[in-house]
């Protein structure tokens, strides 16, 4: 079961688990927009928020969390939580969830939660979204990584959506399709004939409970080209690029069982980085070319992520200030003679009531 938090998170959760997702929101109107098995409204104090949502204010989401605290913390155990980091509800509710998990001494493997975040594309989206994301990554996400009480953290970026001008609905489907490539690894293991290695449900669930960022991708594998080169060329463009890999997992589907040995060169590639991946090689007769699904777990410090956003946010703010100056302030060069200016000021301050000037004006000598 997946859990959607806030508007964007709810849409993704309902796409992944049609009919069985649980969604949280502060607005009844927003809840009505999404099909879900269970809809839970977190009660916000302001009536405006109840109607229109948190409107980019995470504090509203944070306050509303108290009304659903017990239910939410119980529901997310062992599940996948979706939220966007830029808005108010997803960011606010998820922040408190992460802080709560971080404060716990330890969490059993079966209760660890996978978090899927959607971060804004800073170059195109509102600076409020960017600033909310910075606070979210600096605070709750950073704490959660330090505590190690979460499962995988999967960070999707809206970059492709804006650069390729993709409608939201299509983009959400792309995210879920990409996620399913990863989530279907154990299902395929059951359905297809095994040639080498094995990733069963238990292995896969254990992998998902590791508190690292997860980058996964799927591409056609050419055994004549170095694997590293192929991997870098096929990074998942919907996700943030990975850093140094800590653990990995791959599923290689081969149309022809004779190619089974080709997976050794993949193991060689990971061995160079001292990584021993979990792997599974399957026979998939429906394919024309070998297909590989790779997952890389990496521990990029959230502060580095924040630095990226901060740099962009800073640039936006500088540009806004410069544009405001260009638009409203004309700074022309002034040639100022202080003596003349002083006299001018004096003349302006000495008005009609001035005795000497009045006398001189009356006699017409000025």
């Amino acid at each position: 079961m997946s859990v959607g938090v806030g508007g964007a998170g709810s849409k993704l959760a309902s796409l992944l688990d049609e009919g069985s997702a649980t969604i949280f929101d502060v607005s009844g109107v927003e809840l009505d927009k999404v099909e879900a098995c269970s809809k839970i409204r977190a009660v916000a104090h302001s009536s405006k928020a109840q109607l229109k949502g948190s409107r980019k204010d995470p504090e509203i989401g944070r306050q509303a969390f108290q009304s659903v605290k017990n239910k939410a913390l119980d529901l997310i155990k062992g599940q996948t939580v979706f939220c966007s980091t830029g808005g108010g509800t997803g960011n606010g509710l998820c922040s408190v969830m992460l802080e709560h998990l971080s404060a716990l001494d330890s969490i059993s493997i079966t209760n660890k939660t996978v978090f899927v975040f959607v971060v804004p594309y800073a170059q195109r989206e509102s600076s409020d979204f960017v600033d909310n994301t910075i606070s979210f990554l600096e605070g709750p996400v950073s704490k959660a990584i330090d505590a190690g009480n979460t499962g995988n953290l999967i960070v999707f970026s809206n970059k492709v959506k804006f650069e390729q001008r993709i409608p939201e609905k299509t983009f959400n489907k792309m995210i879920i399709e990409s996620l399913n490539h990863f989530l279907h690894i154990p299902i395929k293991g059951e359905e297809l004939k095994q040639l080498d290695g094995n990733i069963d449900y238990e292995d896969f669930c254990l992998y998902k409970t590791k508190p690292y960022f997860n980058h996964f991708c799927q591409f056609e594998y050419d055994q004549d080209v170095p694997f590293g080169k192929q991997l870098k060329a096929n990074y998942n463009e919907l996700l943030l690029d990975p850093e140094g890999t800590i653990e990995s997992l791959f599923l290689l589907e081969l149309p022809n069982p004779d190619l089974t040995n080709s997976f050794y060169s993949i193991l060689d590639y990971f061995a160079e980085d001292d990584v021993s991946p979990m792997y599974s090689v399957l026979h998939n007769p429906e394919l024309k070319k070998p297909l590989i699904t790779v997952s890389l777990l990496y521990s990029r410090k959230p502060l580095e992520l924040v630095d990226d956003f901060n740099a962009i946010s800073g640039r936006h703010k500088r540009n806004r200030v410069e544009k405001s100056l260009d638009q409203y302030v004309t700074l022309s060069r002034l040639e100022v003679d202080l003596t003349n200016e002083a006299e001018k000021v004096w003349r302006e301050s000495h008005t009609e009531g001035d005795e000497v000037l009045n006398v001189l004006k009356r006699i017409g000598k000025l």
Partner: protein
Amino acid sequence: MKDLFDKQVASLRDYHFLILYWAAKAESQHIKYNITNAYDDLKYHRITRTKQSAVAYIESLTTLCFLSMVEEHNRKNLYITNYGAKVLELLYSQNIYSIKPSNFLEG
């Protein structure tokens, strides 16, 4: 020429300033203002006790063409010139001297 004008203005004193002002004020009120009136006013404000000094101040102003002296009905009446008006305005704008009332005109 501007340098010369600036030097002439800079060498003037408060009594010159007051004489120019009183002469202008009298003209604005269509009253004739003569050397004796100027001497009386200077004496009233304890600036000088001798008429010779008052005459000397007035003559210096007429020499500089800031003031003109016109003999009318056996009286030497004083009229401020256009240059004198500029000098008076300038001195006043520099806030060096403050005006004092003429006892003859307002007393």
